């Protein structure tokens, strides 16, 4: 077990990986100098975050309290100048959103979705039992480790179910600065009426994530927020896009249609089980949505035993390998490469 200390000199930034928190925080690939291992370094720019700084508190405090193999661990966090630094293990495949935008524009293969879904539900089951609602389940908050394990992150939007020592049946608080997560949120959470919501709201978001992973982008993406709201309140249930859900046009002429859905999407077919899971998760009535635990008992997850491991399923995506940076030559090379392509933000795009 490596001991991570509060010493900025122990951490050597190698290259930027991505942005998060609406650009107010950045994740870097960094090296832990004493051990030589590669880690992820997240820098929160507190000057930019300003009044939302309590979200950083919430995220760090809660993440440090949680211990589960499918939840991103924070080794250590500290204040460095105007920034808060958080050291976490390197998630070599990046987030599911990265995978979608770089390699799988039309969505991930079904077997990969099922594996990620199981890991997500394991994490969520744990979080719910601990008495928290995540409220920001989305592909960009699901990270994939080099071994192909999905880890949940993004706990800054979460809220406790236990208030004043009592387990609340319903929660009414509307998450502040939740703008980027709105498309994934459940209708009952968005409605903000006296009915309130509970942890089943996260299950709705799981349904949205299944759609997102399968379709390449989340339902209602690009739609105005108010229209998204009315669609959800009216009971519009998003679907996985495949040959069973997209009505075929006359003569199978895909190019002539008014929407440019690639033939790959129109011709593929997800299993009925996956369709069913997405549908029950997206049920309008939270009461009819299963809990994370109930979902984990679904027969769909039995297929995982027989399936290929996630890294194989994710090819051609390659992990940001530890090996690359282990010797200093590579590290230097990486640095110079970085200088050449300062516009390049996603280093995982390079084929090492």
């Amino acid at each position, binding site marked *: 077990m490596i001991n991570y200390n509060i010493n900025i000199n122990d951490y050597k930034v190698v290259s930027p990986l991505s942005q998060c928190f609406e650009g107010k925080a950045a994740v870097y690939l960094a090296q832990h100098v004493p051990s030589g291992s590669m880690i992820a370094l997240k820098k929160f720019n507190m000057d930019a975050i300003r009044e939302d700084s309590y979200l950083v508190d919430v995220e760090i405090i809660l993440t440090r309290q949680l211990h589960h193999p499918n939840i991103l661990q924070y080794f250590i966090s500290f204040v460095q100048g105007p920034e808060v630094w958080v050291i976490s293990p390197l998630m070599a495949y990046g987030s599911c959103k990265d995978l979608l935008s770089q390699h799988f524009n039309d969505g991930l293969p079904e077997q990969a979705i099922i594996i990620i879904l199981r890991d997500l539900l394991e994490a969520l089951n744990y979080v719910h039992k601990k008495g928290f609602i995540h409220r920001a389940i989305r592909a960009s908050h699901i990270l994939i480790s080099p071994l192909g394990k999905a880890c949940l992150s993004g706990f800054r939007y979460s809220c406790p179910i236990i208030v004043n020592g009592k387990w609340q049946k319903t*929660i*009414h*608080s*509307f998450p*502040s*600065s*939740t*703008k980027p997560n*709105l498309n994934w949120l459940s209708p009952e959470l*968005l*409605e*903000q*009426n*006296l*009915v*309130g919501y509970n942890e089943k709201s996260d299950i709705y978001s799981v349904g949205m994530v299944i759609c997102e992973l399968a379709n390449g982008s989340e339902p209602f993406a690009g739609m*105005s*927020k*108010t*229209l998204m*709201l*009315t669609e959800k*309140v*009216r*009971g519009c249930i998003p679907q996985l896009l495949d040959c069973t859900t997209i009505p075929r046009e006359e003569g199978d002429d895909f190019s002539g249609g008014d929407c440019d859905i690639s033939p790959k999407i129109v011709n593929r077919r997800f299993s009925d089980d996956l369709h069913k899971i997405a549908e029950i998760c997206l049920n*309008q009535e939270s009461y009819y949505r299963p809990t994370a635990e109930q979902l984990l008992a679904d027969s769909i997850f039995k297929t995982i035993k027989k399936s290929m491991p996630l890294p194989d399923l994710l090819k051609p995506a390659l992990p940001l390998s530890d090996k690359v940076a282990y010797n200093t030559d590579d590290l230097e090379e990486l640095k110079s490469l970085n200088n050449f392509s300062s516009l390049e933000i996603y280093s995982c795009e390079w084929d090492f």
Partner: protein
Amino acid sequence: MSENIYAVNPVEKDIEADTEERELANRIFSVESDDGLKPINAAENAEIWLNDGHGTDDLDGIDDDLETVNIGNFFHRVDSDQIIYQTKKKRLKLIGKYVMGDLLGEGAYGKVKEMLDSETLCRRAVKIFKEKKLRRIPNGEQNVQKEISLLRKLSHKNVIHLIDEFRDPEKQKLYLILEFCVGSLQGLLDSAPGKKLPAQQAHVYFGQLLDGLEYLHGARVVHKDIKPGNLLLTMEQVLKISDFGVAESIDFFAKDDTCYIGQGSPAFQPPEIANGADSFPGFKVDIWSCGVTLYNIMTGKYPFEGDNIYRLFENIGRGDFEIPDDIQDPLRDLLLGMLRKDPLERFSLQQIRQHPWLTRKPPPSEYTVRIPPLKNDELHNMTVLPYLIDHYYGPGTCYDEDGNVTYEEPEYFTERELNAAEESRKQLAEQFNGSSQANRSSNSKRGKKKRPISCMTVRTLPMCKPS
């Protein structure tokens, strides 16, 4: 709130009647705040308007029209099936990035409406000040400016938070975007049995009131108008001190909290203000009003009453009041301490905090008072939704309680149509009964069972003829 029903009976001279009726019939009421149906004109021989009080602006113009018609001769009761309805138009209105919703409340300065932030989808409330109205109120504009500057610097869980503000120079309106609250403590009391709250609930709210007040006094702000009507509640049951219209910010260099002006609600004023003292300690004013508030929410009564403001102030000035016998120590002692005539002897916030009534947990109560419905909507759904639905899916699309979309094709229903479809007419009559019932019950008391309203009672008198 009353429903005025005007019925114009057939006029002997057909042509004259026709023209007159046209004039009236073409007037379409836009009655704000009602989600249901509203009648626009009646059949050939009768006209009915319903007004729920919010549409007074529209009524102003009507009076003139009615003057030309001799009202006295035309009053006439009408069968309910002669009422014609129009589905309410929900036209989307945007102010900045906010979508306008329905009316939540009304004050002397203007209205409070619900709004939806179209970017974050967070519910908000907006306080709309009409500058014309403000100018008519003494110190109106100054008070509002003071309120805004106070709200801007205040930030506490139990103090209403100002989110945004802007001015529309064309309409001469000022908009203050505030946190959304579902109701006030006053609303809760009005709907509660005996107009009082169970001890446990009162304890929670009073604790929050103290938290908010402690913050305000720490920020050198004297609220001066603490009362149940100014204590709002959010969905999460968090109390928010609101309405800083008469609040005073103590100067940074002032040596103590001495104030010279008292402007709050009479029943909550302390004896020193009732007696017309030149100056008085400001923070103790709030303590007194808190005491009256606690007295009010625990007993359903006021410690001081009077037929008019002079009697009231006379009673307050004397400082003698009675506490009902069922109020025992420690609450009795707390109330006596907070309602001491001499402001210097009156409890301080610290004393109240350490008082046994606050430090001890109250006995569990059998019931909790729930927030009363808004216009018959128990759930307090977003009132912006119908506007959005109408905007996105076209007119005639309605949204019912179950979240289903129902299409109501004709916007107007004439009598001929009604005769053609007698069944639907009956349904509409019931619907009308239901919806106006809703207005009434929400404005009077919750939970009242249906009782016949004027337009239904006339069914029993179908033969009623003008004399």
